[in-house]
Each structure stands twice: as C-alpha cells, then as structure tokens.
C-alpha cells in the first residue's frame, strides 16, 4: 500500500526561533498523497500551512530551531539527503512550488519566456533553445499563447501571470506541484479559469497537487483529499467527498458552517475566539478553548483516531 504513495510525510516538525520564543509552526504532521491525486490543505492564516509547504520542499529560513521527521518521495526517504543533493535531485525535478503571490514576483526586466525556461536550464542542464521549446510546450498546457513568451510580466493580466507562474513550476516536469494560495488575489472568472487549467493538467499530465488555501469553496474544485490544519497540527484528513458532505472534527465543522453559499440559504456561523499562539500552544487539544463540544478528556492531547479511513485528531471519535 505504502509503495504506491507518491509522497508520505511522517511526524514532520518545523519550529522557528523568534524573539518571543520558539514558534511551533508545523508540529508533528503526518499525511500521504497518492499518484495523480490532489490534497487540499485548509486552515486559517497562521496555522502553519505555508510552513508545511516549505518544510516539505526544505525551503527553510535561517531561524529554524528544529526540523525533523521523514518525507518519503516515491518510497524513498529524502530527509537524509544533503542540501545539495536535495536541490539537484528533488526540488523542481521531483516536486516544485508555486509560491504565494508568485504572479507578482516575476522579474519585471526579463521576458516571461526567459523566466519560465530558466529552471529547465539550471536543473535539467539543457541549452537555452531547448529550454525555450519546453517553455513553449508548458505555455500550451496552461493555455497561454506561445506569442507571450516574448512579453514582459507587465504586459500580462493577473490571470495570465498566474498561468505563467504555474508553467514555470511545470517546465522541469515534476510529479508533484505544491500550490500556495494560487488564486487568492484573482477575480471569480479568472479563478475558475485557473482551476480549469489545474484540472486539465491533472488529467493530461497525471500530476499530483498539494493545494494550500484558506478558501474552502474554491478548493473543492480540485480536491481528492482534504487535510485541515489547526495551530500547527493536522486535525483531520480524509477524502473530499465525505469531508465536504460531513466533516468530522469540530473545527472542520465550524469552518464548513462559516462558508457563505450561493445556492442555499443557511445561517452562517463563526468561531469565537482566536487560534492559540504557536509559541506556547495549550497542552491537550489545541482547539479545546474554542470548541463547543469539549469535555473532560480534552485536557489531554488527542491521538489520531481512524474512522472510515478518515483520520481525525479528536477525543469524540475514540471508539
């Protein structure tokens, strides 16, 4: 079973040193991802979801306090690799990242063609002509006309720039793309367009995705699996079908109840209080202080319970 998985993350920990103490941004996360599947990582800002992407890709800032755990890619543990090996063989080549606001981070003085072909030249060692040819192919996949290779970022609209950023992550043909909030700054129709592109890429190229977002409604456009993060921990993980029709964890339930819907009228709920500080997270269940269903057990940290192949970190599901 485990051999089939493209990515398996075990007990991943990423803590940062800051002036006020150690921030436990990612604290013991486990999840896996099959071939040609997409997992959506949902959570509020500050819950550690972007740090999770950085931890998987080992894109670490200087103030890391601890970084441990195991990341298996195609069944091979990539954590023991040195930074150089990781950069040469894993990053871009096996998995790549579309960072948050990538569309605004394109270099304004280079044509988009040059920028998209650069990873191919660096990581695959091809010459510029071949790299541009690869870029042209990727432009076709993301639905941008090849004439745009010669253009500068300011000549493209937001949606086009986002497609270029996706094309850049594809040019080295990795199996896994990590998307960090790919559509949060875009308009409704552009968002729908980008998700159409991602769906098509998933079908045509057999890619897998990790989609990091706080936008629950649009995340359902791509999701096969859903993982919910709260205060550095993954509190629920399961298939999208059952998650969207009935989430398990009280936090996921509240989160789903807070999503405004167009096609039904339902009283919206919100979660009172604020997420805990990641410097000194509460002992026991981290959601307990805001949870309406808490009971005595919640002062102890809940283990992960399995329920119908879904995993949930909540004492309510103790069998």
């Amino acid at each position, binding site marked *: 079973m485990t051999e089939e998985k493209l990515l398996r993350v075990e007990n991943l920990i990423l803590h940062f040193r800051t002036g006020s103490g150690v921030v436990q941004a990612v604290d013991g996360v486990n999840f896996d991802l099959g071939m040609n599947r997409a997992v959506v990582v949902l959570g509020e800002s500050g819950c550690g979801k972007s740090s999770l992407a950085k931890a998987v890709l080992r894109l670490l800032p200087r103030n890391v306090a601890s970084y441990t755990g195991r990341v298996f890619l195609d069944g091979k543990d990539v954590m023991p690799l040195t930074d150089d090996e990781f950069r040469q063989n894993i990053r871009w080549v096996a998995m790549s990242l579309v960072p948050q606001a990538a569309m605004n981070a394109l270099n304004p003085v280079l044509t988009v063609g040059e920028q998209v072909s650069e990873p191919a030249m660096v990581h695959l060692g091809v010459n510029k002509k071949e790299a541009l040819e690869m870029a042209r192919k990727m432009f076709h996949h993301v639905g941008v006309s090849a004439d745009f290779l010669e253009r500068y970022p300011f000549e493209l609209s937001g949606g086009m720039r986002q497609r270029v950023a996706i094309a850049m992550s594809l040019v080295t043909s990795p199996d896994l793309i990590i998307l960090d909030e790919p559509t949060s700054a875009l308009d409704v129709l552009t968002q*729908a367009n980008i998700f159409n592109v991602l769906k098509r890429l998933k079908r045509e190229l057999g890619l897998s995705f990790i989609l990091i977002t706080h936008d629950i*409604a649009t995340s359902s456009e791509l*999701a096969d699996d859903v993982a919910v993060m709260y205060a550095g921990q993954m509190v629920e993980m399961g298939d999208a079908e059952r998650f969207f029709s009935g989430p398990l964890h009280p936090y996921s339930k509240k989160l789903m109840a807070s999503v*405004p819907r*167009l096609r039904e009228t339902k009283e919206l709920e919100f979660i009172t209080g604020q997420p805990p500080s990641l410097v000194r997270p509460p002992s026991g269940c981290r959601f307990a202080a805001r949870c309406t269903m808490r009971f005595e057990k919640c002062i102890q940290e809940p283990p992960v319970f399995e329920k119908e192949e879904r995993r949930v970190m909540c004492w309510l599901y103790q069998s």
Partner: protein
Amino acid sequence: MFTELVTKKEERSEKHQREVLLAIKNLHVWFELRRWGFSHAGYVRAVDDVSFDVHKGEAIAVVGESGCGKSSLLKAILGLHKPTSGTIEYYDKNISELNTKELKWYRSQVGYVQQDPFGALPPFMQVRRILEEPLIIGGISSVSERLDRICRMMEEVKLSPVNDFLDKFPHMLSGGQQQRVVIARAMILEPKFIVADEPVSMLDASVRVEILKLLRGLQEKHNLSVIYITHDLSTVSYFSERIFVMYAGRMVEKARVQSLLRNAGHPYTNALLAGTSDPDANNAKTFKEVPPGEPPSLVKPPEGCRFFPRCSQMIKGECDVNIPPEIEIAPAHQISCWLHKQSQSSAGIIP
C-alpha cells in the same frame, strides 16, 4: 421559512422605497491620459453612465471584477473623485458643488470601510487616537465626551473589554480586530451611510462571517444605508437587499438579491454565478464554463455592449453596434442586454 425571510427582506426594502438618500444620475468618472505629461491621449472611462438611487436603510452590493470601475464609483461617492459629468445628490444636494464647510459635513455623513484594515490604520497611532481623530475634526471639544463616545463605539463593534484595546497599536491586533477598529472609525461620527470596499476579502473564512454579521447588525440597528463593494457573489445574499453588477464601467444588471440569484438575465451575471463555487466534492469532476478572453480596456471599450466580444449569445449587427438600453424584466430588475429587448419589445415595455 426561507420564503418568509425573503418576503420580509423584500418588504423591508419596499418600506424604504420612499426616502431616497443618495441619487446618482448619469455618472461618468473619466481619467485623462496624457502622453509625455501634457498632450491628451484619451480617457480611461472608469465609470460610464451609471445611475441608481440608494434608499434610506438599504444595503446595496456592487459586484464586479477588478478594473470594472467599482472603486472609482465608490471614490466618486465619497467625494474623492470629481465626476466628469453627471451628478451625485445627497438629500438633493449635489456633492460636487459643496463648499469646504459643507463637504466637511458631508464627510461626517459618510463612513468609509477600507479593504485592507492593516493598510488603512496608521501604524504609529493607538486605537484611542485613531478613533479620536474623526471626533476632533468633527468639532467635539470635550475630552470626556470623546472618550465616552469612543468607548461606546468600541462596545458596539465588540472590541471589549474596551480598556484592553484602547492603548493598543494596530499591529498588536488580529485581522478581525483591526477591521473592527476600521468599522468603529467609520461609524464614530454617526453617519447616515457607509461605503465598504471589500471589507472582508482580506480576512479568514471564520472571521469573515463575524465581520459581515457585525456590519449587518449595525446597519439594521442604526438604519444605515450601505454600499458594499465586492467581487464575491456568495457573501452578497447574506448582506444586501439589492445587487448591481458592473462590467467595464457600466451597470449591466440591477436587481433584488433573490431575483438576481433565481433568474439572472445578463450573460455576464450568469457567467459570474456559474464561476462561483460552493464547497462540493463534485466540483472537481467537471470543468467550469468561463467566457473566453478578458475584460476590455477602458480606454477604448468595445462599441455597443461592452461584453459582446466574450458573449456566446451575441446578436450580430446589434450588440456590437448599439449600446443596449436598460430594460425592466421584472419589478425592480433591470438588465442592459439586447437579448431581453427582443423578447420584451412585443410587451411594450419602455426601456
């Protein structure tokens, strides 16, 4: 229960039909483009021939993509942009003709809730000072009265206990709390209406609802008129009575919320509705219908209907030539689209 809620809502907006607070007539906001700094090079037609009334106590949502002119419309209402032509009348006073003193009064009547709360709050001022400034400008000289009003306002936006927040700087607050401070600042002079520019787009899902409910509560309690600008259709039905859909500087559809959600008439509105997802795992199985292309340049917008280059139901020789008139397809539901002209012309409804 649902229909009850709707009729109650409709009744409420019916009741407010009488008193018009703000009347916008044929508003144009154009920005001149200059080449080399002085020679004329055309106009950006950000708002082009927009007319509507805002009634007392009514919440209106203006929906449109970025660059469609909705922020220019809002700034014209706030008196920050002068209309190129057309008028904005507040209680029968044309706001572009107000003198400095009257403008000061007008600005105390309008509250502005900005999009990005952190960017809208001065980083080096404490909450107390941020909320005090409008009162000082508004001419309230008594210090104790100012403090009293600040505390009352903070209670109202649920920044309590007040003493915990009075001396905080914006960076010490969470996004939701910052937005509450922005709302409190907009409300502190007891305005008659509020313009809110995407007030929740920068916030997390769970906080978003809280802020929308707070705004809704304040609106109902103080019988405020609200113009709520957004690109997210899914929040609109929870907040407003009427929706105006804007595309490339023009209003393409104006309707009551339920009327628009049930039978939207304009192809662009339909595209927006189809593009908005509800959380549902089935979404992943199908592709979305999205009109091809992108919104036009506002310097040289297409002749006729501005949506025709992207529209699948375009009528050749009509949509690409003549500007569609505003047609009333149902009570208080107007559409600017030639498709409806054709079906309605026999009924004899005057555009």
